[in-house]
């Protein structure tokens, strides 16, 4: 009886559930145990009846109209949603305000654009000019400008003799 308790859970196992050793031990036990042979027979009958019953129930249902029924339910849900939500949603009052305050709405839409434009102009004015301009004029003498990355160096030349 103790041995039967050990093998009872293995009876009715699906293929792959048992290891090779377990399967051979179960087969050896079944060959010599009438009680477990009876359990196996009951299990096989019960399993067959269950699958047959499920298949019979499935076959009795007609799924040909399933997709049509799902599609038919969609408008119903939309109508139900429309009843619970306010008319036109949140957009309707905003559109109404825009219709009554067209000028304000246009100006309000323009404000961020103008702000961005002003920012671009402001930043553009701050940028360093390409090649910092240097103008040096000197009467009667030559001048020389050395451009360095740290800034210009202006050198005065000697006075030129008059008439030169």
């Amino acid at each position, binding site marked *: 009886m103790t041995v039967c308790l050990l093998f009872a859970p293995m009876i009715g196992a699906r293929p792959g559930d048992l290891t090779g050793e377990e399967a051979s031990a179960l087969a050896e036990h079944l060959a010599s145990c009438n009680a477990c042979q009876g359990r196996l027979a009951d299990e096989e009958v019960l399993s067959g009846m269950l699958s047959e019953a499920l298949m019979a129930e499935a076959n009795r249902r007609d799924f040909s109209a399933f997709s049509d029924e799902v599609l038919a339910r969609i408008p119903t849900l939309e109508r139900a949603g429309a009843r619970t939500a306010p008319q036109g949603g949140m957009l309707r009052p905003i559109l109404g305000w825009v219709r009554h305050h067209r000028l304000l709405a246009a100006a309000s839409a323009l404000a961020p654009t103008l*702000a961005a434009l002003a920012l671009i102009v402001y930043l553009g004015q701050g940028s360093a000019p390409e090649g910092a301009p240097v103008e040096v004029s000197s009467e009667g003498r030559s001048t020389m400008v050395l451009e360095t990355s740290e800034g210009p160096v202006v050198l005065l030349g000697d006075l030129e003799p008059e008439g030169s």
Partner: protein
Amino acid sequence: MIARRWFAASTLAVALLTAAPTLAEAATVPVRVRIIKGSRQGPAAVDPRLADLRGQLGRLAYVKWDQVGEHHADMGLGKSVSLPLPDGATLELTLVDAHKNTVTFQVRVPARLTNSRLTISKDQRIVHQVTDEKTGEAYFATIRPWP
């Protein structure tokens, strides 16, 4: 009512952003002017106070550099300052234009009939000869905005 206030606030913000460059330009620019002497003779040496000018001074034939004067001024747009030079002449410095990162100066030494207009960026400085060279020595002015 709320919409009108919001519109007014937006308009004000735009006006402020547009006016920002004008306001920035109207502000004064702090300027540091140093008068320095360069000598061709003597051991090569640069006054430690002129260390920030080594890059520019090193390009010149003068080997010995000393600082002989320093002036600070907050210059408004179009405003001039007159600074005395060691030889008795006067240096006239005018802030001609100023932007966020650039500034334009006019440097005049009437006694030398010299007039320069120079635009530099915020991190640059001007080195300008302001006297003729005599016995291997000449004076320069170095001008730095936002020192």
